[in-house]
């Protein structure tokens, strides 16, 4: 009985991890590859969810909503890059922090202006409702499995894009020396607009997919943002593989911590105390893990350069 639950929880952790990866994927692209600290990534995620919810409500189709989320986030991303980010590449990280912090304020409040203050409705599409049986008697939700699938597909796609294509090489080259790559004849400006829009679209996709499981509301991107940063830093900046591994570590540690810590503590103290202290420790756990990993591997698990 307990083993079955343990296995299910491990799966839950894995799935949470992949979900986190989906959120982190766009961020890795922009942050790891373009070297830009984009605090507004969570807002792009929110935009995706809002676009999907609004369009799905208007058309009755989740899938059209999903396309809308990609388009909306990519569009907003491209506008942001051209209007703001483009001017900040040759500045230090700090100016980027301030500018994207300002963008959070603008996008959040703007979204509230457009969509009102109340959470929106978004549900999983009929096609993906229901569960599939697991070996050993359990069952797993189809939609969550689909998210795992999308996450892995995104991971592979991004990995290939960055490490195998000339586009990927140019992006990385631009990160280390924008001036030089321009002097060698590459239009890095346009390239970065495209990459930023792609990263934004991935954020939007994550927002739409996860929005069906959560509350679609203003500010939904912020907790995600911090977690996504944790994920890519644990994995090593600039490494898609690292982001995936980091996400799974965070997902599993968080889930298992929430699940096991209270019961473990209950062995040594009264149950009521164990539940609250266990919960407190569980909420600190991923940060403890992150600090430990960075203390021993100061540039993450799979840093792009040795």
């Amino acid at each position, binding site marked *: 009985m307990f083993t079955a639950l343990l296995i299910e929880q491990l799966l839950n952790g894995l799935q949470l991890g992949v979900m986190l990866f989906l959120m982190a994927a766009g961020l890795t692209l922009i942050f790891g590859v373009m070297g830009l600290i984009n605090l507004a990534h969570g807002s792009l995620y929110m935009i995706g969810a809002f676009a999907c919810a609004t369009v799905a409500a208007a058309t009755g189709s989740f899938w059209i909503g999903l396309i809308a989320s990609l388009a909306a986030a990519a569009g907003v991303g491209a506008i942001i890059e051209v209007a703001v980010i483009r001017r900040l590449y040759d500045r230090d990280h700090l100016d980027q922090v301030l500018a994207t912090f300002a963008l959070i304020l603008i996008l959040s409040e703007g979204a509230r202006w457009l969509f009102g203050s109340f959470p929106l409705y978004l549900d999983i599409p009929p096609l993906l409702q229901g569960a599939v049986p697991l070996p050993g008697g359990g069952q797993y939700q189809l939609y969550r499995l689909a998210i795992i699938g999308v996450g892995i597909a995104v991971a592979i796609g991004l990995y290939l894009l960055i490490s195998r294509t000339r586009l990927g090489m140019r992006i990385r080259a631009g990160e280390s020396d924008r001036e030089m790559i321009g002097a060698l004849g590459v239009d890095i400006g346009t390239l970065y607009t495209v990459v930023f829009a792609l990263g934004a679209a991935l954020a939007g996709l994550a927002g739409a997919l996860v929005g069906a499981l959560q509350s679609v509301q203003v500010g939904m991107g912020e907790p995600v943002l911090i977690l996504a940063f944790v994920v890519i830093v644990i994995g090593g900046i600039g490494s898609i593989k690292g982001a995936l591994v980091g996400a799974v570590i965070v997902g599993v540690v968080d889930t298992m911590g929430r699940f096991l810590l209270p019961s473990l503590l209950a062995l040594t103290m009264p149950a009521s105390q164990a539940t609250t202290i266990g919960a407190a420790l569980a909420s600190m756990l991923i940060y403890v893990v992150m600090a430990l990993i*960075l203390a021993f591997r100061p540039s993450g698990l799979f840093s792009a350069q040795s």
Partner: protein
Amino acid sequence: MTRETTINLLLALLLLGAPILAASLGEPFYVTLATRIVVLALAAVGLNMALGLGGLLSFGHAAFFGLGGYVAGILATHAFNAEPLFAGIPATTSMPLIWVVAVAVAGLIALPIGAISLRTSGVYFIMITLAFAQMIYYFAISWPAYGGEDGLSLSMRNAFPGVNTAKPLPYFLICYAALMAALLLFRVVEGSRFGSALQAARQNGTRLAAVGIAPFNIRLVAFAVSAMITGFAGALYADLNRFVGPSMLSWHMSGELIVLIILGGKGRLFGPVAGAMIFVFFEYVLGGITERWQFFLGLILLGIVLFARGGLLGLLSGKPRHV
């Protein structure tokens, strides 16, 4: 006198004169608002030491701000309820004593956090400092003894010998004096041998090591001193609001401190002061005009980053910094 010095002097006078004027016109609220500016600026001066001079982008300084605040809150609560702290040590409501404890606690906690975090650099440093702050934040939220998420209310301001701290203006003057002292310290340290080494550590740590100064030690001391100043500000903030809560420890707070510095001008003496002045001013003025104030605040901040390189002071004093 350079243009920047003149501007600094004007800012200092404005910050002192406006509240005194407001108090004499019977508008105590503006004194409180000015106190908020001063305390936030003080916290940011602390961060500016690590960030502006040392290039250590700590995204976890809210931890020290909050720790300072909680020290003040906890000491005051215990003293108010006449409960000893632990092992019979009595609590206190004396501000100077509380400050000493707050500064010491912030410094002592900053040492291990710094020692671990400084093994990393760049974005990893940003994130590991954030991680430590988040640990403390979640601890504060879920630890019931001192109010958890609800925070801790102080029933009255702590005492300063010979001053009626309950009145806005005297309390403002205390905070103002603290800010000026911190600015003086910043200026002196910046020009000292330690400051030289610290700035060199920011520009090129390998170069510093190659002349025989270990960057790690320099950075660690700077990080601790920086945390102590920010912790001091936290204690003042607790008394200003007569309240401490986990929001003082949240990453938003860390982010806000960073924003103040960049707004005003990173590494500049009065950068945090100018930053706090405009940030609080806009927050207050816009908040009074429209409930969409965050939208417009965002636009203004964006305008400043894009068009005022080197922050407000960079814009006003018109030339880049060189040493």
